């Protein structure tokens, strides 16, 4: 084999253009090295470090946003697209990363984990998501998808003492690997049809050539949609999501539902709107069907759940339907509605799962609706914040959720998809029932009957005393009738009585931020709305 003579064309790499990704990839490396060299200390240092890295990545995104302005450019030999859309999403992912670190801190304290693995994997996953949003090449989309997903598979299994966590990870892994393979096949077919994997070159090829027998191209496009449809959990590719959301530790669920979906939608925008914008009439019906199915199935199945994490999973499927409805319109209004929805949804869903993580208690066990009863009397602030977040998800006025749904519906109407708009509004009404049911429970009275039974059940039994207690020195017969309670049982019943567990510091901060953002940006919508419009103006 002859080696090609001469120097290779070495691409110019503008490191400032990929700074958010570099921060999100470099910080976990530093953290792992740190954990390998020092043994002392709890999870607090990892949390602090991750939050600092998130702030740095966010500032880097802002820097790119300001610098790129309305002149997008490509970096790293066309592999990275630097525009306001990628900067906008990098910022969202950086925020999600920081919020996740705060939630993971409380989780680590409660579950007695002190390793750096969870925040490190979260940052790696976020870096993959940033790469997907900034990808200028289908292969880079795939690379980002895998970086994001592989970290998420491990994060889902993080609760080693809980069987459901491992089950969630395995399901997510098998189906995720399957969808990645389909996506990769789609890339191959698209390459076969257009002769390139570069998004800009696919677009220019399709704009300047009329593909006569385009079966291969359409098959490739369908497979790309299926692969990304799995990631955003659109019906009928949603079957993994309730189980995975339920089984994963709650902070991981929050992160997964926010970041993986947003990254999937970003990739869909890149693939469908940018690369295959000229094939709009071919992919619009497919996205239309996916949107209607997600809205209907997600909305209806939400209502019949009793496990709150499953409910939120189905409601996030219905949210995916809304975002797909925005994507389907393939217009400027649809794009900005999509960006706005993703930003609003990220904050609302992370806040909601933060509450689920708090209520779930050790091992995320109590997620039944009854566990949420009377939350507001135990923790008025948490109950209030959860109410705001749920109303926001329901689309109540003066929240970002209302505006997000409004822009999606108006984009669909502007496109002439009246049926889709009606379905979206009906689905919003149906899911509102579920949110209001939780809210009523929050302010309702506490139900005394928990599955474990009231604390009074823990009457010490003689058999237990014999096995747990040491041979009692019951000298003589002074205590013949009464049973001596071993200290272990006393301690156990004491903790059973104190049901009101402290709200962790990280959870409090996350809840305050998310709820405040949902209301403030809903009442005063112009900042985020202008950002979302500016993010999607160039395509």
């Amino acid at each position, binding site marked *: 084999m002859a*080696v*090609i003579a*001469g*120097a*290779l064309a*070495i691409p110019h790499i503008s490191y400032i253009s990929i700074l958010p990704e570099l921060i999100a990839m470099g910080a976990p*490396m530093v953290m*792992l*090295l740190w*954990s*390998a*060299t020092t043994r002392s200390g709890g999870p607090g240092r990892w949390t602090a470090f991750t939050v600092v890295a998130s702030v740095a990545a966010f500032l880097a995104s802002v820097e790119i946003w300001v610098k790129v302005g309305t002149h997008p450019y490509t970096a790293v030999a066309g592999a990275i697209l630097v525009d306001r859309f990628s900067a906008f999403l990098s910022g969202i992912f950086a925020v999600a990363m920081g919020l996740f670190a705060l939630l993971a801190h409380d989780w680590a304290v409660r579950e007695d984990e002190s390793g750096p693995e969870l925040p490190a994997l979260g940052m790696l996953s976020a870096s993959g998501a940033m790469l997907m949003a900034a990808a200028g090449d289908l292969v880079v989309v795939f690379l980002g998808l895998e970086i994001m997903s592989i970290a998420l598979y491990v994060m889902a299994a993080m609760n080693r003492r809980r069987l459901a966590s491992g089950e969630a990870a395995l399901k997510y892994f098998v189906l995720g690997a399957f969808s990645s393979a389909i996506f990769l096949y789609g890339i191959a077919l698209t390459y076969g049809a257009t002769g390139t994997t570069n998004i800009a070159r696919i677009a220019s090829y399709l704009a300047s050539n009329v593909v006569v*027998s385009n*079966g*291969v191209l359409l098959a490739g496009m369908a497979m790309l949609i299926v692969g990304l449809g799995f990631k955003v959990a659109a019906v009928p590719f949603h079957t993994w999501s309730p189980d995975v959301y339920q089984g994963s530790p709650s902070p991981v669920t929050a992160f997964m539902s926010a970041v993986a979906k947003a990254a999937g939608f970003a990739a869909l925008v890149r693939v469908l709107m940018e690369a295959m914008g000229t094939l709009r009439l071919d992919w619009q019906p497919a996205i239309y069907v996916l949107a209607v199915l997600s809205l209907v199935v997600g909305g209806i199945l939400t209502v019949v759940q009793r496990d709150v994490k499953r409910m939120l999973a189905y409601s996030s499927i219905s949210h995916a339907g809304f975002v797909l409805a925005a994507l389907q319109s393939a217009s400027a209004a649809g794009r900005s509605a999509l960006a706005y929805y993703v930003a609003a949804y990220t904050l609302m869903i992370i806040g909601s799962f933060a509450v689920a993580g708090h209520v779930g208690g050790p091992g995320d066990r109590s997620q039944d609706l009854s566990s949420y009863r009377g939350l507001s009397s135990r923790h008025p602030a948490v109950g209030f914040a959860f109410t705001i977040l749920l109303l926001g998800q329901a689309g109540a006025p003066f929240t970002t959720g209302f505006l997000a749904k409004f822009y999606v519906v108006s984009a669909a109407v502007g496109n002439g998809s009246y049926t889709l708009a009606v379905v979206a509004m009906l689905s919003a009404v149906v899911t509102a029932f579920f949110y209001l049911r939780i809210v009523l429970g929050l302010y309702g009275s506490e139900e005394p009957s928990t599955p474990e039974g009231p604390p009074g059940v823990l009457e010490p039994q003689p058999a237990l005393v014999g096995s747990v207690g040491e*041979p*009692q*020195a*019951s*000298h*003589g017969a002074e205590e013949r009738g009464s049973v001596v309670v071993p200290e272990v049982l006393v301690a156990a019943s004491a903790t059973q009585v104190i049901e009101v567990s402290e709200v962790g510091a990280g959870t409090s901060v996350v809840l305050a931020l998310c709820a405040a953002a949902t209301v403030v940006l809903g009442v005063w919508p112009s900042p985020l709305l202008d950002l979302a419009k500016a993010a999607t103006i160039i395509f």
Partner: protein
Amino acid sequence: MEQYLGVFVLIVLGALFAALSFTASRLLGPSKPTVAKRAPYECGIVPNLEPVQRFPVRFYLVAMIFIIFDIEVVFLYPWAVIYSQLRLFGLAEMVVFAAAVVVAFAYLVSNGALDWGPRKRIQPTVSYERTAETTLRRLPPGGRAA
């Protein structure tokens, strides 16, 4: 689509060949089964012990060490072939990549991937607070523990 005709023909031929082979061996071959022939493996020693079902879970760390160095080598080979053309850029990129691998390795070692010996006992087996009072059990006059 014409260029895919060859692929299609090959798929059909492959399926036909497999189907024909199975049918032919079913039809033409004499069927005289014995116990030895029906055994899952027709050669080797008949196992008279159940295979060991469990092995120490810490071997997954060994597998991870293998994988990280495996991946590094996979990238090092093509890199070495065109190293002279990549020049300083290639060297810098590979140093960054190797650093990432070393971090992963350091993390694994710090988690005990190379500690293969029996785990050191941190707590003494015998408590130092043990005295005759705590060790010997006093029985009540009846001779039986309560």
